[in-house]
């Protein structure tokens, strides 16, 4: 990964995308909506630390907000 603010919009998971989605749904299985929301918040925080680059995090935040408009 490069330093700085390159956010990836192209696919980086390849064939593992379906696997990831499956595990994500599995992690939510059996949870109430509130428990699921809490899980999502924890996930975002952990993933942010994994990304570990404030420029990327800022562009990710902007992209997510804008995609929902």
């Amino acid at each position: 990964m490069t330093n700085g603010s390159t956010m990836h919009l192209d696919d980086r998971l390849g064939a593992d995308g379906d696997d990831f989605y499956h595990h994500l749904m599995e992690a939510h299985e059996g949870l109430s909506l509130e428990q699921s929301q809490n899980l999502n918040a924890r996930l975002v925080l952990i993933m942010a630390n994994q990304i570990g680059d404030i420029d990327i995090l800022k562009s990710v935040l902007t992209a997510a907000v804008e995609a929902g408009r």
Partner: protein
Amino acid sequence: MAHYKYEPFDYVTPPEVAGGETRQYQVAIIGAGPIGLAAAIDLALHDVPTVVVDDNNVVSVGSRAICWSKRTLEIFDRLGVGERMLEKGVTWKVGRLFHRDHEVYNFDLLPEDGHKMPAFINLQQYYVEQYLVERAREFPDLIDLRFKNKVIAQDLADDGVTLQIETPDGPYSLRADYVIACDGAGSPTRHRMGLRFDGHTFHEQFLIADVDMPESPFKTEHPERWFWFDPPFHNGQSALLHKQPDNIYRIDLQLGPDADAEEEKKEVNVLPRIRAMVGDKPFTLDWVSVYKFTCARLERFVHGRMIFAGDSAHVVSPFGARGGNGGIQDTDNLCWKLAMIIKGDASDALLETYDQERRHGSDENLLNSSRATNFMTPKSQMEAIFRNETLILAETMPFARKLVNSGRLSEPCSLTGHDLQTPAEPDPAGLDPGMSCPDAPVLNQGKESWLLDHLGGRFVLLTIGDVALPDSPVEIDHLSVTTRGSDAGTLEDHRQFVADRYGDVTAYLIRPDQHIAARFEGAVSAAALNEALKRARGQQS
């Protein structure tokens, strides 16, 4: 009107009932659907006679399996019906995915250049069965097709199976060394044997309809595949539109778990739904059905001398076209093995590798089809939120398009790592043992030809470029591909596709089902080739 004309096949009184002698058959096949017929033809190409019994006397009613993948077409081509299917079938490339009232993205299956067969064709199952029956009849001495012959019992012994069969003229029994049960998803053979069929039944119901519509609903003249999540004409559910030959369109509508199947099937309820989808174009209904589906498989496909293939062994959801395509790969894998056993060239142990390799293929299909089904039918509010947001991101972010799952279309199954293949270090410039052989254009004594036309049906040593050959003779067909070759037995790689796909100066041992059994770099020694051949024939302990 181009409606398919169902011509019943003639019933002939079996010799056993007509008072003839009762002979023992080498192979009996239960079910004259695409899988059973493909098995009979494949075995006939190996000179193995079969008797095929089916309780019915007409091809599939309704289109049922419609989407045939490249790998399946290559197998059908080896069996002698591929070109006919290609000619009649609808080749589609562009898929469009809609969410609510707008298109999220589209994709082009971009057929890679240099293959005889396209990625997919759509063709109604009744045509496929008709072509296969006609092809089977080209082997009158080897294939004995018996319609209106219903198997009602089986008795398994160590050295064969006895079937009890009912016909319009009365019952008889038939003994075969091996029986292949290709009697479909509801397999009566499987039920009678009391075999567990473990898996998952989805409660979601779907309406499936074939619609005869002279005017295309698509905006271009090329046929496409359209898939909707939550369309305005069918709130909260998914919908699929596909073109088949004769201006027949396949429509799939998700109905939810609580729909009343009998009500939904009524024309008065079906028509408005379709009108909402295709607008005011005139159409007539050809076939309607409401279904639920199960993803399940047998724990084992081989039970002594009874072998299961196709839907009788495993069933998947229709999303991804993995039912019919998976079944054809079963018989492709099975028939050469069974032929070797029957000719005394291999022991029953080789059947174990059919079981092993096709359970693996089946698991791959089950996994993909279950995941597609899960994406289409969110089980909780949070699952629905994730799906919805994935679809929204997919509009602008390419990565999210990869997560949208409306069916991962059937790809050839790789048998890498299974017993028959000689392991090799992964080679980015070549193909790994277990993979199915990709096609490539070649010249055969100056004439345009395809590589796959020269592989299959027997073991072949394929060499590409100047490979040093075995120092002592090995009993195997040798096919050489070079950039200059024009002698008999040598194909010319005039467009470099073979070298690009297989690597240059490489040799492969190719199985009769066009899968790679072993790879050799630069030179092939007699010892290494013999060892790989022994292993690929299941003769290694």
